[in-house]
């Protein structure tokens, strides 16, 4: 299924509706009931318009959502905080304490070869993540950057995506990264896409999902 929308909030609502109506139920390893669709592709044409609105929408509920400061810190912080199993920033900007995938690879690559299809970063590390007992594995696996008609497009591959509570934070973080790279390249923001292998919603959140859509 491919969902094309202009804004993040519309894409989110349409996707949630699709999962509720067309998804199939299963019970996950924590024994929680989920409804899921596989390989959901969402294209947002103008993410800059409302990339933080989906997070705002989460504030109406009982739980505590990470602050936007924490979300942006986690995507940009190079430091490996030992209290986390992994952190996105460390994997993006200091992968295995060796590689800054954005500043030392994506940006120089796209500057030298704007048509490149190789501008991909990996947040998945098979050396540590391919462990049958390790449940704390990044959901965001790869992010691909592609310049098209002078705009920087960004596609993120997400292996497991709680579309109600997780996707808003993901979109905020991916947008910040897209903007960071676009600014370095003096380019406008293009389409932001997510490819969710398992796009799901927990049954316990159904009431809130229905309120949202």
């Amino acid at each position: 299924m491919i969902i094309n929308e202009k804004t993040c909030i519309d894409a989110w609502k349409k996707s949630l509706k699709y999962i509720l109506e067309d998804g199939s139920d299963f019970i996950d390893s924590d024994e929680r009931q989920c409804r899921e669709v596989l390989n959901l592709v969402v294209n947002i044409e103008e993410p800059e318009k409302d990339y933080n609105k989906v997070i705002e929408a989460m504030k109406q509920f009982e739980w505590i959502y990470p602050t936007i400061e924490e979300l942006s810190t986690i995507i940009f912080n190079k430091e490996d905080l030992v209290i986390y199993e992994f952190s996105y920033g460390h994997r993006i900007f200091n992968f295995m304490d060796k590689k800054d995938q954005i500043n030392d690879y994506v940006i120089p690559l796209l500057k030298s070869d704007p048509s490149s299809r190789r501008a991909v970063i990996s947040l998945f590390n098979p050396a540590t993540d391919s462990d049958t007992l390790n449940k704390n594995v990044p959901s965001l696996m790869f992010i691909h950057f592609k310049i098209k008609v002078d705009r920087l497009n960004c596609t993120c591959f997400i292996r497991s995506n709680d579309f109600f509570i997780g996707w808003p934070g993901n979109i905020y973080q991916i947008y910040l990264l897209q903007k960071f790279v676009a600014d370095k390249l003096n380019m406008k923001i293009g389409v932001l896409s997510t490819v969710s292998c398992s796009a799901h919603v927990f049954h316990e959140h159904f009431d809130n999902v229905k309120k949202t859509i």
Partner: protein
Amino acid sequence: MHDTEEVILNVFKNNSSKELNTEFLAKKVYPQEYSIIENLLQSTDRVQIHDGKRRKFQTHRKLLYYLNKLIDSKIIRVAKTADKGEKYFVLEAGEGDTIIEKGYKKIIITKPSITSTQIDKYESKGVMKKYEEDSWINRFNSILLECSKEKNIDKIYETMTDCFTNINDAIALNEFENVLNSTNERTLKEFIDKLSRETDSSNNTVSIIINLSRVNHDIYQFIDYYSKVNPKKINMIFNLGNKDIQKCSKILEHIIERFSDTKIKINFKNDDLCYAPYFKGRAGIYTFDEQEWDIYSKKFKDKVIGVSCSQSQIAININKFFEVYDTDAEFRQAILNTAKALLLANTIQRRKSNEYFRNINNMNHPNSADFYKFSRDYIRFWNYDWHKDMEENRNLFELIKSTKELVDNFCLSEETIFKSCGIPIRFKIAFSSAFRNFDTKFMGEREYKKATVNRAEDYYNGEIKSFIQIREKMFEIFDGGDRLRIFRKSDFAIADIMHELGILLNAYRIPFFTYDFSGLKGTVKLTNFM
């Protein structure tokens, strides 16, 4: 850091959210000088008043010199300038804990944050209390150190003293029998002496956990020495199963004799019921989730020096709560708010973990993350008063049980939310009972029934039996551990206690219990009853 700067920062430490004016600070920083100034200013003699004003000006100028240095270091800032140019200063640091290091001196200032707003209405009514508020974010409550890998007692002591600064309650030494089996008596005695001095001068407690069936050395002298020193903040916890009573009968009898003589509490963990260790702190009992302990033992135990058990904790006085609030719904909401406060505390702790726990991280390098893997936060209950009316007890059980389910779901949802956002946190809350030493002022008097046992037959009589059965149920709900405390009175033969041990290990599902001999008169001798 200059001494005066340190004094100024200590004033801010106690007033971390307030804007403090120069006069207030001067009174606190230079109390003696300021008392002279105030006397002079209250005088009717014009010369003395003039002298007072001069001294006040000089004191303020001296203080401003140090305040400006702290402003330059971006530790404080001018919040406002009031009429007549009087300046007000405020801490520059944001919410949570800030470590200020200048030279060799280090001060930790906790600035109340959003974490407090979740529960401040309960705190102001005296029904809820954070444990050790000054350090509830920048220190762990309790950790467990393994003695299976490192058996050298001097190195264990060194690790403990390194960890003391990161802990505000308890350190457990697990499988201490490994040390007992490989250390001579003199060194063991020195260890008890050093540890006793160390814990006496701090708020930390230590639990020495011994699997009696695995002791293969003569530990009689060690037990004798421990009883003689009777260290108030070092507990011994004996792990044993029913079969071990026979196997370890001699040493058990010796322990009972010595400990009852010196009125030391004897703590037993029932190995037949649970695998995870139990240990005692000032705040209460600590333990681990049984399944997680299994994973830890199989996969992580050999890679780390130990494991963190509890990060932050809050106590609630149940009787008082229901004096102020009426409904179960309010109770559930209060506990949910407590869970939120703990989550926000964890958020700050996470952000600053490299700063707060650098030494522990270094000790566990390269497996530093594994140290935090099984840690929980604690919500502890005080004065939940057992009613004679079983119906009322049932209602309380159900309330606590259903609230625990609510809290578990909240924790799971929050873990999912944060994990989905690339912040793979561990957030688990355990329920447990509180000890009075959690905070004696807040706790007030204990309103519990006491289980006073005079003879083995008491375990089969109606009152004690039903009391223990209620505690069995609480053990099921209190996943953070609980303790059954038996007050043992009257004359007894050591064999009686051995018999009672068998009853407690066999007939009841009580994972952890303590024999308290404080009600005994005189001393007990083995020979008296032989």
